[in-house]
C-alpha cells in the first residue's frame, strides 16, 4: 500500500473511534475536535450509502463500456481478450490514481475499479486459455486460472488493502488445493498454517489497518478450511473430493477415520470458541458459534435424537435462554463486566444497529403475499416466517 494511504487509514481509524467515544458520551465535542486536529485525515469519506451507490453506478458504466467495445471490435476471442486486457489495465491505472487522491480514495470508486481490474484480467486469461485449448477449458487451464486468481487477488489485497480481496484469494487457493491429490489433507494443513500465520499479524502495528482486517479474514478462511476438512458429513459425502481433477472411484471412509472425523467435528468448534473467549476476539467467537451450529446440524443428520419440531423448538429455546443468561450475568457482574466481557454497547452506534436489524427481520418473517396463496380457503394454506412456512 502507498505510505500516504496507510497514514490516512490510521488517522481515519482513530477519528472513527473518537466518534464512538463522543456518541457514548465519554468525551465532549471540543475534545473530539482536538483529536481530529491531532490526527488529520485529508480524505473525504462519505457514508456507506454514498460509497455503495458510487461503486454500483461506476460498475454499471464500466460494464456497459466494456460491452460496447467488445461488440464494436468483433466477436473473435482475440478481440475480446484485447478489450479485457485494455479495460483491466485502465481499471488498475484508475485505481492507482484514485487511491493517490485524498478527495477520491474513499468514495467507493477505487474499490470498484480494483475489483473490476482484477476481474477483467482473469477474464482475459479465461479467454486466452479457451482459445489456446481449442475453445474448451481443461483441468490444466482451471488449475492455472485458480493459481492466477490466488496471486492476483493476493496482490490486489496487498496493494489496495481490501479484505474482500483477501477472501477471494483464500477462496481461490483452497479451490486449487481441493483439486490436487490429497486435497482434504491439504485443506487441513494449509488451513491450519494460514490460521497460524495470519493470527500472528492481527495486532502487528507496522501493518495497515486494512491489512490487519485482511489477516482476520484469512484466519476465518483458514478455520473454515480446517473445519470443512475434518467435518464428518464432508468426509462421508466426499464433498472436497468432488473437486479433484481426475476423480477415481471414491472408496468409503474407514471406520477409524469416520470416528476421528466425528470427534474433530465436535472438538474444532469448541477449540475455536475457547480461543475466541481466551483471546477476546469477537470474530473468532462468532466463527466458533457458526461452526458449533454446523456441528449440531451435522449431529442431527446422523443421530435422530428427536423429531425436527422438537429439535427446532429446543434449540431455539436454548439459544434464547443462553443469550438471556449471559446478558444477565454480565449485567449483574461488578462494573457490568465478567472476564473482560460486557453486554454494554461500549462505543458502538446502537441506533444504527437497530436500523440495520429491521432488514433481516422483515426479510425473514414477512408472511407470503395474499395472492401467492391459491386455494387457501378449503384447501389448506400457509403461515410462518423464517423458514416456518407450513401447509395445513
Amino acid at each position: 500500500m502507498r505510505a500516504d494511504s496507510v497514514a490516512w487509514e490510521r488517522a481515519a481509524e482513530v477519528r472513527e473511534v473518537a466518534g464512538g467515544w463522543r456518541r457514548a458520551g465519554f468525551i465532549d465535542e471540543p475534545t473530539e475536535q482536538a483529536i481530529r486536529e491531532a490526527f488529520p485525515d485529508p480524505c473525504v469519506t462519505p457514508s456507506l450509502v454514498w460509497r455503495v451507490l458510487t461503486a454500483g453506478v461506476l460498475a454499471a458504466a464500466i460494464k456497459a463500456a466494456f460491452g460496447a467495445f467488445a461488440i464494436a471490435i468483433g466477436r473473435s476471442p482475440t478481440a475480446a481478450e484485447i478489450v479485457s486486457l485494455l479495460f483491466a489495465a485502465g481499471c488498475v491505472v484508475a485505481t492507482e490514481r484514485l487511491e493517490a487522491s485524498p478527495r477520491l480514495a474513499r468514495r467507493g470508486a477505487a474499490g470498484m475499479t480494483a475489483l473490476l481490474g482484477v476481474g477483467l484480467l482473469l477474464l482475459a486469461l479465461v479467454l486466452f486459455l479457451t482459445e489456446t485449448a481449442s475453445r474448451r477449458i481443461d483441468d490444466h487451464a482451471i488449475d492455472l486460472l485458480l493459481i492466477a486468481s490466488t496471486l492476483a487477488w493476493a496482490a490486489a489485497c496487498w496493494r489496495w488493502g481490501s479484505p474482500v480481496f483477501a477472501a477471494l484469494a483464500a477462496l481461490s487457493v483452497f479451490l486449487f488445493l481441493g483439486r490436487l491429490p490429497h486435497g482434504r489433507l491439504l485443506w487441513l494443513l494449509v488451513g491450519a498454517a494460514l490460521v497460524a500465520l495470519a493470527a500472528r499479524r492481527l495486532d502487528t502495528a507496522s501493518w495497515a489497518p486494512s491489512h490487519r482486517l485482511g489477516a482476520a479474514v484469512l484466519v476465518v478462511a483458514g478455520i473454515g478450511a480446517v473445519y470443512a476438512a475434518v467435518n464428518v458429513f464432508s468426509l462421508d459425502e466426499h464433498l472436497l473430493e468432488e473437486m479433484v481433477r481426475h476423480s477415481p472411484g471414491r472408496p468409503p471412509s474407514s471406520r477409524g477415520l469416520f470416528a476421528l472425523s466425528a470427534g474433530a467435528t465436535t472438538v474444532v468448534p469448541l477449540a475455536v470458541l475457547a480461543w475466541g473467549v481466551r483471546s477476546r476476539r469477537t470474530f473468532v467467537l462468532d466463527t466458533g458459534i457458526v461452526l458449533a451450529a454446523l456441528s449440531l446440524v451435522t449431529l442431527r443428520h446422523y443421530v435422530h435424537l428427536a423429531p425436527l419440531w422438537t429439535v427446532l423448538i429446543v434449540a431455539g429455546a436454548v439459544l434464547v435462554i443462553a443469550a438471556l443468561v449471559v446478558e444477565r450475568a454480565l449485567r449483574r457482574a461488578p462494573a457490568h463486566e465478567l472476564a473482560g466481557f460486557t453486554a454494554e454497547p461500549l462505543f458502538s452506534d446502537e441506533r444504527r444497529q437497530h436500523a440495520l436489524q429491521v432488514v433481516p427481520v422483515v426479510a425473514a418473517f414477512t408472511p407470503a403475499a395474499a395472492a401467492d396463496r391459491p386455494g387457501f380457503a378449503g384447501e389448506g394454506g400457509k403461515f410462518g416466517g423464517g423458514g416456518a412456512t407450513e401447509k395445513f
Partner: protein
Amino acid sequence: MNPDVAGAIARLKAAGVLADGPAAFFDRVARRQLVSVRFEIRALLYAGVLLLTSGVGVLVAEHQQQIGPLAISAGIGLASLACFAWVIRKATPFSWGAVDSPNVAFDYVLLLGLLLLAADLAYVEVQFTVLGPRWTYHLLLVAVVYLAAAYRWDSRTVLGLALSTLAAWRGISISLVHGASSIDDPPLRVNAIVLGALYVGAAALSVRLGRKAHFEEVYANAGLLLLLGALVSGALDDWVAWPAWLLVLLIVAGLVVWLSLRLGRPLYFAEGVVAGYLGLVRLIFEPFQSSGASSIPLLLSALLGVGVLAVIATAYRRMREREG
C-alpha cells in the same frame, strides 16, 4: 489490540487531550481487555426466535391431527400471551418520542410474541374459517396488531414487519423466505403505488406532527421501495404503456432526489437515482430493440453512468455544505 488506537490514546493522554480516567478506559477497550458481546447476544436471540417459530410451524404441520386444532391454537396463544406478559411487565411508559429498550432481549421477546400471535391467527383462520372467503383480512388484522405494538413499544423492527405484512395483504411480498413477488401485474402495481405513497405520507406526518418522528426512515424507505419499484416495473415490463410509466417514474424519481437533497437523506437519494437510472437505460435501449446486438446503446448507457456519477458527486458536496 488495536495498535493504532492504543498508540493514539497514549499520545492524546500525554498531550492532555484525554484525562487519565477516560484514557485508561479507552485503552482497556483498545487492548481488548474489555470487549462487548452485545452483537453476539442479539444474534443468538434472533436465531433463537427464528428456530422457535420454525419449530412451531413444523409442529403444527406434522401433528395437527394428533394434537387437535383447539389444543394447538390454545398452546400457541398461551405462548404468545406469556411473551406479551413479560413485555408488558418490562416495558417503559409510552412516549411519542424515541424510547430505549429496557434490555437487550426486549425487542426479540416482543417479536416472538407477535409472530406466535400471527401464526395462531393464521391457524385459527385455516381451521375454523372465521373470515371465510375474506380470509385475506387476517393479514390486515395481523398488520394492525403489529402496527399498534410498534407504536406502543417503540419498535422500528416491528413497524417494518407491519408495513411488509400490510403489503402482503395487498398481494405484494417483499419476503426473502417466500420470494419477492413480481409487481408486473397491473393491479399489484397499482396496489404498490398506493401503499408506497401512503407510507411516504406517513413518514412525512410522523416528522411534521412529532409523533414517533424516528419511524420516518422505516416508513419512507418501505414507501419508496414500493413506489419506485412499481414505477420501474411499469417502465421496464409494460410493453404498451411504458412511455407513460417512464415519464411518471422520472418525475417521481426527480422529486425524490430533490427532496432527499433538501432533507439530507442519502438513502432516499440513492433510491431515487437508481430508479431514474434504470428508467433512462430502458429509454436508451428502446430504439435498438429490433436491430440486434449494437454497441451504441451500451456506449450511451456508459455515458449516462458517467453523468449519474457526476450528479452523485455534486449531490454529496451539496449535502455536506448544507450540513455545514
